[in-house]
């Protein structure tokens, strides 16, 4: 899909790039199914078939360095290209998962499937994929050493202003817009998954929960997206949703950048819904047509809360200005039909109004370092920092 003629950068129409992507994709596919695909082999040296040879060749391109971090799901190593040690990469080695004995973990499949197709400056780049002898998959990802957006707003030593927030939010919006233009739902947008490259670019990472847009009458799971960033329709158990879920998450990240604290924190899914209703008002059939038909909808027993007035937003998000507040509220609309699409978000006048977004090179930086990148990449989708990941049920099918 990334190869389609419509979504190419205006400046570079590079046909050569496309072929490289195709050959890469072939390598990726072969790497993923190396033990199975022996049929397409041509007689070659030794006992290795073509797929194994290609896998070998890909693997030999990279030198694995120090271990940066280890999680339940993956181990992250520093690395670089063999022919050019200045080109750094991060190698994410996915552990053999007990849940998927006969194949590759779904997270890895999703990540490879979507990252190999999305090529955008604000989306983490997947250089290659190879497997090692013990059937472990290794993803060669872009080296993003400067931490993530959540660490940035948590670090009180870093000071930033409205123009910086605008620059970061715009890069996030571009990434989400590009995903949606290519019919990919990310479904796990949060500050933790927005890594910062050495040049200041924000890059969307962790496509472990991503999927492509579903066809009508093809249900999807509602148990995705880290809770703080989960939109109300998913909390109500909607099974037919679209890009609006990512826009909600994007809005929450945007709000967190301005607040420098979690905007909608909660302990449980029910509490999350009540926190949302406290701010945006309890949804009714008037404000959100069809909400009562959703699976987990319960009519409000206690007197329903009213949406917070503009004063509430002005007091908290003054740094964004009136346009920013308007955009934020439009991104955080309860009714997904009335919520802005990613395209509309980018068309908003907030981006072009003063102040002009900071150039990416001049953005405030957090000295994250390689260690932090390791921490970020090893995480599994949908996990919350506190380490109570077991509470997040992960229904990946359905």
């Amino acid at each position, binding site marked *: 899909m990334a*190869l389609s003629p419509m979504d190419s950068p205006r*400046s570079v129409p590079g046909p050569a790039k496309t*072929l490289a992507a195709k050959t890469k994709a072939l390598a990726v596919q072969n790497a993923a199914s190396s033990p199975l695909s022996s049929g397409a082999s041509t007689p070659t040296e030794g006992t290795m078939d073509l797929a194994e040879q290609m896998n070998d060749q*890909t693997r030999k391109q990279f030198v694995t360095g120090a271990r940066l971090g280890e999680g339940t799901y993956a181990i992250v190593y520093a690395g670089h290209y063999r022919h050019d040690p200045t080109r750094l990469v991060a190698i994410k080695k996915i552990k053999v998962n007990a849940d998927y004995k006969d194949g590759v973990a779904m997270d890895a499949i999703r990540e490879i499937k979507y990252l190999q197709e999305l090529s955008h400056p604000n989306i983490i780049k997947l250089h290659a994929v190879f497997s090692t002898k013990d059937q472990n998959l290794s993803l060669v990802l872009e080296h993003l050493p400067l931490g993530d957006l959540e660490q940035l707003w948590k670090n009180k030593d870093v000071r930033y202003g409205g123009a910086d927030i605008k620059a970061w939010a715009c890069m996030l919006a571009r990434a989400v*817009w590009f995903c949606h233009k290519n*019919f990919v739902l990310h479904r796990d947008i949060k500050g933790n998954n927005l890594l910062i490259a050495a040049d200041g670019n924000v890059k969307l990472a962790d496509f472990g929960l991503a999927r492509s847009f579903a066809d009508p009458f093809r249900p999807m799971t509602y148990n995705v997206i880290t809770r703080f960033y989960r939109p109300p329709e998913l909390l109500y158990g909607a099974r037919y949703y679209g*890009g609006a879920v990512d826009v909600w998450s994007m809005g929450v990240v945007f709000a967190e950048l301005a607040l420098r604290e979690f905007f909608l924190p909660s302990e449980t899914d029910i509490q999350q819904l009540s926190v949302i209703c406290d701010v945006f008002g309890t949804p009714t059939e008037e404000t959100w047509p069809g909400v009562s038909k959703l699976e987990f909808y319960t009519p409000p027993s206690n007197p329903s809360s009213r949406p917070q007035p503009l004063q509430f937003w002005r007091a908290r998000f003054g740094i964004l200005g009136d346009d920013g507040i308007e955009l934020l509220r439009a991104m955080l609309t309860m009714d997904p039909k009335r919520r802005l699409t990613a395209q509309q978000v980018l068309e908003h006048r907030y981006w072009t109004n003063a102040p002009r977004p900071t150039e990416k090179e001049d953005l405030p930086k957090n000295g994250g370092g390689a260690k932090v990148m390791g921490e970020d990449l090893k995480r599994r989708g949908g996990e919350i920092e506190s380490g109570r990941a077991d509470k997040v049920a992960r229904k990946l099918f359905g």
Partner: protein
Amino acid sequence: MSRPAQRVGATPTKRLAEDGGESPLSSGLRKLDLSSRSTNLSSASDICPVCKSSRYLNQNMKFLINPECYHKMCESCVDRIFSRGPAPCPIAGCKRTLRKVRFRDQTFEDLALEREVDIRRRIGKVFNKTQDDFETLKDYNNYLEIVEDCTWNLINKVDVEETEKRLQQFAAAQSQEEAEISGTSGTSTPRNYSTPDPSSRGLLKKSLGARHALDKSQSGASTPGANGDSDTLFTFKGLKKRIAPPPEKPYDPFGGWSTTPEYYVLQDFYDVGDWLNKSRDDPAHLAGGQDIRDFYTRALCDAFSGFGVFVEDEVAGRTPEDPVIATENAAVAAVSRDVNMDDVF
């Protein structure tokens, strides 16, 4: 001044103590250090040439100099003589008028050196071209030669008047050029060097020479060229013309990526059967936010993707620097044996 020298001479024990913890030895040494520094600055033989007061009489005596004539005198003399406004230098034979504000500490013991450094600093502010401003290294070296000649003249008092005049004219020409550039770029800089109108107060503060140079440049008879022409009495060969930076482009939220489909126009509604139409009205789809237009977009995109992609052109346009990730075998196979590459997606 005396600090680095002492550091070099310091014993290893002292350095250790300085880096790390406090010890009786180190504190003792530090006291020594302080005392030696103060003696260094104030030798007992210090006598003010004006009031003949010496360090013996006044422990806290401090000497000041004025870059006008570099004659040294003590602080109390400066207060006494210059508090009521400018006055001539009290040193015999020096008739220069000095002002109190310009008196300062001296940095170097050698006053000749002090003067040379001041002159070089002043010249460096005016002649601030870098190698990038010149076409060739030779031109830059020639420029440096001229600058050094100018400096030499001022230091050794050769043709001082003439040199000063040239210097001031060059400075005026530079600032005018600066103003022109900031004027054309359309941005209003906070420090605007635009030529002031003659009645403005800023001009009154300028020295006579600068005023003269400004008048000359303002007369408009000959506007100085970018290469510092005859008007400034300097000719620098190979000096590049300074170009105003291009105005900042409006911010593009999309970052230069386009989305308009080339081969089709998307409609709002396609009547393709009950199955699809039903989802338009299905409450579950409506409340969940699934958009039928996404489906239309996707179907059409899928139908038209691959249009305008020609394998032959891509192979021909391939460069050797291309990061080949798959094997060469695969690339060859993709071309020669008509393998449908799109199927891998």
